[in-house]
């Protein structure tokens, strides 16, 4: 296989990878958004539970309902469990995105390694108007992969709160949003990268069509 062929196969795997990342990113955003609303619900529930714990029912007009506090607590807890379950499902789909991206990036690296010798250093560093250099794209892919892994574990960690620590649960949505804010620069990273390789992908598509 010549240098050109090696470059072509590397480029092809790049294109496939970017396609998949684009798709996965949409799913990622969707899942995260869903989590947002679930967390708000969770925080509401935590607030209600706190109020339920704080109020001494005997001193209120509700004193006639002797088992009310326990019943309400039970109901709220049940609702919370349900919400947590939903959250878990969502996190699973987030994890799926992460794994898919990791897998795909790994595959690209493998293709690159196979063709590395033939490609040579100079070819890997060459940039053109249409296509970024192989090194650049490798770097971007690594960054993206790392971003997803990081975000996932960070969010997962955030959700590790003990369900009994109500005040923490109550502040979850804010912490969650902060995570988003902090990573806006990097969130942009995925989209920017996709933009940066848009021309390249188009060109690759063209090539496919011609061949």
């Amino acid at each position, binding site marked *: 296989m010549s240098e050109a062929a090696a470059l072509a196969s590397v480029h092809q795997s790049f294109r496939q990878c970017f396609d998949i990342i684009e798709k996965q990113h949409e799913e990622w955003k969707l899942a995260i958004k869903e989590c947002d609303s679930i967390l708000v619900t969770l925080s509401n529930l935590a*607030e*209600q539970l*706190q*109020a*339920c714990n*704080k*109020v001494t*029912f005997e001193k*209120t*007009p*509700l004193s*006639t*309902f002797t088992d*009310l506090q326990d*019943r*309400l607590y*039970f*109901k*709220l807890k*049940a*609702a919370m469990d349900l919400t947590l379950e939903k959250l878990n499902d969502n996190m699973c789909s987030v994890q799926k995105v992460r794994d898919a991206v990791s897998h795909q990036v790994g595959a690209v690296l493998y293709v690159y390694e196979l063709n590395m010798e033939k490609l040579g250093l100079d070819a890997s560093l060459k940039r053109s108007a249409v296509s970024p250099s192989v090194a650049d794209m490798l770097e971007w892919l690594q960054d993206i992969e790392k971003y997803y892994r990081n975000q996932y574990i960070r969010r997962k960690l955030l959700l590790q709160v003990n369900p009994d620590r109500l005040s923490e649960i109550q502040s979850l949505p804010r912490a969650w949003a902060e995570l988003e804010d902090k990573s806006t620069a990097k969130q942009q990273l995925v989209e920017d990268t996709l933009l940066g390789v848009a021309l390249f992908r188009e060109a690759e598509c063209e090539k496919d069509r011609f061949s």
Partner: protein
Amino acid sequence: MRYTGIHSLDNSLPGKSPGFVTPKRPALTGSARKIKDNVADWHNLMLKWENLNDSAFGLASKIVNLRVSLLSYEKMLVDDTSPTNENIHQDKEELERMCSELVDILQSMHQIQMKMEKLTSTFKGVCDLEAFQCRGEASCPVLFHTWPTSLFYETSQKMSDMYKKEMSLKRTIVGEIAHTPDQDLLMVYLSCWLYQPYVDNSIKVLLESMLLETGHRAI
């Protein structure tokens, strides 16, 4: 639930045959007819109750929000006398209007609850009738799949008790919701309203099993 367990064992063999659905006699008559209709009514009433509950909850939370803002405003009044009474007046009127609306809804919920009780007493009537018809015999006939008639009555009784208790809770809440300054208590009122602590989660199962038994739901 206990009963279904035992009886379904007895009837398990015929029940197995494919295509065997609720005795789909085109025209159910007498007690069976009555029971089936009642169960359907139960279902509808509960739906209505949920709807009313939801709209009432919306109202209640609005009331609570208003109350909270009024409270904070009153606190402000103590600190300094800023003259924006107009808004307050409006708010107070709004509060009154919503309260009366809530009372109206509560009234209709009460009616639903009464209807539930009436359904229960109908079941009781059917039971009594059957007992009268079958007196002297060893066992009463099973009208549907497995349930004896008395089980319908007992289930209905259980469910209607729940709603009765819930109704009295709601009545208390409506009476107090616009009068307490304690925000935590307000929160408790709201969550009580929404989560209906006296309506057990098992009520869905009870209703579904009645629907199943009477053939409203396909097995």
